[in-house]
């Protein structure tokens, strides 16, 4: 009995994807073809894959925006197969999207961040606390009274993330949220993701950038709606030929390290220029 209660408690801290299949109406092929995955709280995941591989569809199924065609998604103990489950999921599994311009609904930043908690029917003082906490966490408290549409693209995306965090989620799904940002804004968002991981929030980051995936605890690669690789960044991203075979562009530093290895050097698994330099000078 205690084991069952323990399993139920654990399921509230994870997202379980079982035999998930999904097909868009009128599509010639399945977007997801039998995905089995498990995501734990407090971990940073990178979801990689070429265009059309099913990354965004998987994220939307995990957030309850899309209902599974078949199979099951249990998000923090909520079954997204039923409508009640899908409606409840965004309160614990939040999501931010690629283009912040198409996520804004309010005329001030604080009202934008409050939109989610307002939809949960919370009391105004609770909404106030959540808004202040989320803005503080993201580091944009000074923008509270500004108009979202007048902010820079990077600031807008931070507002969108604050809006997602105001839901006080167990998981944050990022659907290519860094792809439209410049280097400094991307860096700020990635630092925030690492901070969230430290706070025990699970982050699932859909991305095309391998240098971002290198920061993750676990990398999952999709292709044609199936999982073709899963493991640590070092285990997956350090072999350039394997990375290319997955339709991805390998990191330059891994190509250098790989070529050095072919020349007979015993190069450790390296994902960062600083690591490579440290090894070279060692």
């Amino acid at each position, binding site marked *: 009995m205690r084991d069952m209660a323990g399993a139920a408690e654990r399921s509230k801290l994870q997202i379980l994807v079982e035999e998930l299949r999904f097909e868009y109406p009128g599509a010639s092929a399945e977007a997801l073809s039998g995905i089995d995955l498990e995501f734990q709280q407090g971990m940073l995941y990178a979801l990689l894959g070429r265009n059309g591989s099913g990354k965004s569809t998987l994220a*939307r199924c995990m*957030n309850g*925006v899309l209902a599974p065609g078949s199979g099951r998604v249990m998000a923090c103990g909520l079954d997204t197969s039923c409508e009640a489950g899908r*409606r*409840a999921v*965004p*309160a614990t599994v*939040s*999501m931010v*999207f690629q*283009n912040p*311009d*198409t*996520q*804004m*609904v*309010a*005329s*001030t930043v*604080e*009202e934008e961040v*409050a*939109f*989610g*908690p*307002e*939809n*949960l*029917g*919370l*009391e*105004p003082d609770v*909404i*106030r606390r959540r*808004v202040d906490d989320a803005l503080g966490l993201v580091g944009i408290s000074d923008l509270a009274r500004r*108009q979202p*549409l*007048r902010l820079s693209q990077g600031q807008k995306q931070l507002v969108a993330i604050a*809006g*997602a965090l105001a*839901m006080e989620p167990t998981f944050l799904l990022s659907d290519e949220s860094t792809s439209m940002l410049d280097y400094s804004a991307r860096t700020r968002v990635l630092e925030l993701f690492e901070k969230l991981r430290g706070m025990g929030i699970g982050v699932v980051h859909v991305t095309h950038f391998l240098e971002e995936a290198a920061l993750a605890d676990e990398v999952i690669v999709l292709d044609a709606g199936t999982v073709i690789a899963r493991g640590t960044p070092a285990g997956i991203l350090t072999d350039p030929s394997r990375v290319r075979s997955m339709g991805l562009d390998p990191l330059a530093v891994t190509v250098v390290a790989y070529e050095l290895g072919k020349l007979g050097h015993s190069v450790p698994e390296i994902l960062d220029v600083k690591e490579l330099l440290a090894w070279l000078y060692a």
Partner: protein
Amino acid sequence: MVGKDITIGQFLAVDTALHKIDPRLKLIAAVASIVLVFVYGGWALLAYALFLFAVLIVVRLPMLPVLKSLRTVWVIVVITFLLQVFLTPGEVLWHWGFLSVTDTGLFNGVVFSGRVVLLVVLLAALTMTTPPLKLADGLEALLHPLEHLKVPISRITTVVSITLMFIPKMLDQSSKLVRAQMARGADFESANVLRRVRDIVPVLVPLFVKVFHDADELAVAMDARSYNSGTVRTRLYPMKIGALETLLVTAFILASIALVFI
């Protein structure tokens, strides 16, 4: 460019007394004013127009954007005026061939086109001083009794607010598309109307495709923040009507009605 002149429906982030008034009161005042614009004619309408502009100036609403909003309807104003001037029977003041201007036509032309102008000014003042989401909240509160008749008021008001929100986005997008087409030789200022019509098609098609795509993305983003949670939505700033604003709006409506005795 295309959209910069269209100010109606766009919120103006300045601090005026109108901005501070509860959206429900503003909606009631706007509806009362619109009714009076149709009720009044002749000197009463002129007096009411002066009164409305005086109120807008007193509350320090920037008048340039308000007047700019008229640019979107100037064709309607002119057509309304001309139709009334030339087609209303009455004492002929001037005629040339089959065209004749009558005293009644001239009077009606001014009144009818004046009503169009006042309607636009009122709507511009309302939308410029009320953020779309607040406007939707106000509408929802006022129309709430219709929920009992199974009318999806909450959904309808959200559609209204998002439509208002999309106006500046559409204008921005259309400006970008126009610039892109001009860079490829399109001539939107040509004297040749047919050429202008032909050149506008490559702008309209991608504009609508983009707007539908953005609307779809927004719907997903709203769902992702529990918009469809089925819970009654609360507010960070619950709407509260103060005594002073009630007094001011009541005084405004009473003063508007009192003009009928002029």
